[in-house]
């Protein structure tokens, strides 16, 4: 079996698994005590069945050679850039790990520097300064103008205290 078709087969398998997951969750819905012509379970069962059918269709298509080999973008694609993916992944994970303890601006700045490095930036110092300015501007913009409720982290809290304002 061709390598591209094997990748397509995995996709079909994933959709089947998703359908299975949906089916399992549909059976777990408690039966409603309220009277209704159609309960809360009908549509979840329907969606699960559709996903299973589509997954089976994709598997069948993959077994007949798949569809990836017909995609122009796949044929012309450069090889996987593991370095870029790893740096980008590290940026996302750093954001998840740091946003709680440090707050938005610092966590998102670390992410910014790592993502920029993933896409080939080599001036980390300049990126870091840019990141801090951008994330702080975005934080103040979203909190003050859009009224989004994002707790002040270390950096935001410090700046608000310098400005003599109460923490939101």
């Amino acid at each position, binding site marked *: 079996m061709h390598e591209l078709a094997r990748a397509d087969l995995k996709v079909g398998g994933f959709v089947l698994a998703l359908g299975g997951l949906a089916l399992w969750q549909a059976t777990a819905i408690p039966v409603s005590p*309220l009277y*209704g*012509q*159609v309960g809360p379970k009908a549509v979840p069962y329907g969606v699960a069945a559709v996903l299973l059918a*589509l997954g089976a269709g994709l598997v069948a298509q993959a077994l007949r050679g798949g569809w*990836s080999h017909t995609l122009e973008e796949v044929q012309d694609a450069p090889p996987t*850039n593991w370095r870029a993916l790893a740096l980008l992944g590290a940026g996302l994970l750093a954001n998840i790990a740091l946003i709680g303890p440090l707050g938005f601006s610092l966590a998102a700045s670390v992410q910014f520097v790592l*993502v920029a490095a993933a896409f080939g930036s080599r001036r980390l110092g300049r990126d870091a300064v840019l990141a801090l300015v951008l994330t702080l501007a*975005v934080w103040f913009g979203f909190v003050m103008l*859009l009224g989004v409720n994002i707790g002040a982290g270390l950096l935001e809290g410090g700046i608000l205290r310098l400005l003599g304002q109460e923490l939101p």
Partner: protein
Amino acid sequence: MSAFEGLALGFGHALTLGNLGWALLGCFLGTAVGVLPGIGPALTIALLLPITFQVEATGAFILFCGIFYGAMYGGSTTSILLNTPGESGSIITALEGAKMARNGRAGPALATAAIGSFVAGTIGTLGISFLGPVVVDFALKLGPAEYFSLMVLCFVTVSAVLGGSALRGLTSLAFGLLLGLVGIDLQTGQPRMTFGIPELLDGVNVVLVAVALFAVGETLYLAWRHHEGAAVVRPVGSILMSRSDWKRSWKPWLRGSFLGFPFGVMPAGGTEMPTMLSYYAERRLVAPEHAAEFGTTGAIEGVAGPEAANNAAAAGILVPMLTLGLPTSATAAIMLSAFQSYGINPGPLLFEQQSALVWTLIASLYVANIMLVVLNLPLVGLWARILKVPQPQLYAGILVFATIGTYGISNSVVDLVLLYGIGVVAMFMRRFDFPTAPVVIGMILGPMAEQAMRQALTISQGDWTTFVTRPGSAVLLVVAVAALVGPRVWGAWRGRAA
């Protein structure tokens, strides 16, 4: 209310200083995100949804529509100067536009795109003004059964008719429907698809999904395939169109507009098909002395027609959105969720209950069109400079916005994990050619379709045949089935005949 009364009312509200300001801000933001590769109107509006808690509905929707129209204008700039179309509707524009730019005619290409967009946008907006009330009269006669069937038709056309493969389109749609099911069932209060995680009881947030699909997935995919080397931005030069450019452009503008608008209005709202048809039409109708320019030095007709078709189709998408509450593009789906966050239900009653809002919005579309042509032609140098934002900082910046847009929903790290998880799925969807718009449409329209279905079944006392015994509903379902299997039967029949 007739279209003329409505427009008189609408312009009265639209021409106030505040609403003009919202329109200008929307046009400016929209053009900028249209120009920038990697962000589009759906993502921008999703990130700005919190504004619905701060600003009254009219202002917010004028802003959103300005972004929607502006992104169409901006998209052509990227196609022409960078030869990388930002969204599906401007792929065709890149064909001839980038060739014109390579031959030093970027200026006239940008000008014919902008003026063509203006012509098409105006014709499209006229279409909304006069067609909207007609569709509303028709829609008021629809019961829940017909509504459900109409939504089924919409599901089929957005996922199975457009795009590369019906199987993959429907899979995207089913994924969206599944995401829409997560949370508490509104009618019985039972938790569904929550895996026992309390954070999921409120459902999956649409902003989170839009950001995951359009920002995180796209960035991950680009990193996966990243290779060093900057793209070439072509210089703009003079934007003046010669007498011959005008002569060659005006007919394609009109043809593109009249071709694009009906495609947008039909629930098959897509911009790929009309732009492609317009391109082939222009290629065939071009004067013989210019025919050789197609595919070589770049023919201005091949920019003027598809660009007009793109904008007219985009305007047409607003007709089913405003009159029926049916979103047929990802951007329209996000706008629909903005309506919901105001507690407004788009649909036929919108024109009656919120007539001032609707007509102000429509009047603002005329205003936005004029603003956009003014913003785009003289400021084209500024937009070209935006294209030079280096890739590393651009994508790093997009993820900063993605983070704040998602984390701001509930300050929960669970949301970020979900964001990145769906982002990884979106990356693979991009690689394996699964369309992303049906996910958003399925997620937003799915719960509405379920509600209509259950209402219809309550009325019919549980009789499922209600969907085929009511004539309107039956016709819509037949059309949906025909749209699903018709192309295959046609292909098989032609295969046998050949």
